[in-house]
């Protein structure tokens, strides 16, 4: 993580067009990719739950999606800062990535609402799992929809032929990506361990009472 910060801030050459603001790219894109990865992991665990019926996958799926939502929110925030730095506005509908994350953010907030409203048990686990699977189907479908919507919402305002990344930029990007993924994994394990401890404690308390 530290190495990633050093590389991103000091080593990678500045982008000629965007200057210092471009450096947030090294945070924004890895965070976004990690969020996708977490949502994917949550859906995979959900699929395992539905196929095996083992309840432990419910918690794993929930924690993965929780992490995904945290990283998704971070993507929105870093993306918003980037938009402010490069275009002078906090929000722009012309960034497909940002719009997609807004849709996903709404979707996964609804996922948490669903979980809170159904009583704990196998039914909640299965309903949440089904909704999580809808989520991974929604990601490509929404992406396609947002691309299509450009057609009538803002016909080609920005042509983005991004500059090619140089060797050091690419290296910095990869290190940042690995660092963020590791961070997500550690957070995932920590939250999972915490939640499992909670459940074990509750069962223990019931058993003794």
């Amino acid at each position, binding site marked *: 993580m530290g190495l990633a910060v050093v590389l991103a801030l000091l080593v990678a050459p500045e982008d000629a067009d965007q200057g210092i603001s471009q450096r947030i790219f090294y945070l924004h894109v890895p965070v976004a990719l990690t969020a996708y990865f977490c949502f994917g992991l949550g859906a995979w665990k959900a699929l395992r739950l539905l196929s095996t019926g083992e309840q432990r996958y419910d918690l794993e799926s929930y924690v993965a999606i929780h992490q995904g939502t945290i990283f998704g929110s971070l993507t929105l925030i870093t993306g918003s800062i980037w938009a402010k730095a490069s275009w002078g506005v906090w929000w722009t509908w012309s960034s497909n990535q940002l719009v997609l994350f807004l849709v996903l953010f709404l979707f996964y907030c609804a996922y948490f609402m669903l979980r809170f409203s159904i*009583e*704990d*048990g*196998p039914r909640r686990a299965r309903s949440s799992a089904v909704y999580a699977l809808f989520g991974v189907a929604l990601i490509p479908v929404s992406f396609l929809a947002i691309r299509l919507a450009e057609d009538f919402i803002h016909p080609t305002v920005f042509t983005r032929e991004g500059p090619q990344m140089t060797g050091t930029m690419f290296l910095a990007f990869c290190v940042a990506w690995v660092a963020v993924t590791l961070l997500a994994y550690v957070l995932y394990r920590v939250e999972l361990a915490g939640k499992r401890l909670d459940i074990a404690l*509750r069962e223990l308390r*019931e058993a003794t009472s």
Partner: protein
Amino acid sequence: MIVARGLERRYGGRRVLAGVDLVVQPDDVVLVTGPNGSGKTTLLRILAGLVAPTRGELELAIDRSRIGFVGHEPLVYRELTALENLDLFGRLYRVPERRERIGMLLERFGLWDVRAVRVSEYSRGMAQRLALCRALLHDPDLLLLDEPHASLDAAGAALLDEELARLARGRALVVATHEPERLSALAPRRLALT
């Protein structure tokens, strides 16, 4: 036909059914007794396959489609008539010679004259008798009844006792009830939940 070991069910942190063992043989009559909240309904719903146990094992040596279930509620559409309800469920249960079977059941439970009346206009007792018709449509080998006397008047309850005596021949009954003495003629086994 049923072997259940250590059935347990939790809702959230609440345990509504704790460690129940039950064996049901064909021709058995089992009365499930116990105070309100002891898990009678949950046990029957687990046996019917409506609720999965949180813990424990349930072995069914009988196809799910051979089970009949009478719950607290009649499980029929309010806005449909008795005939329409039974026709729909008869289709879904693949009942052979549906029309004749439905007519016979409606006669037997005294609902033939109101067969074209919507269930929403039925009294609770009539709805309960229709629920029995619905549960018996496919001539099940195992009949699960959750407090079948609850909403019946004296005449209806007497009719039900007669019917249950008839039904007990050649099939297994599991009855959750507050009035076990009503069915003592069937020489039942008792399962007391606490």
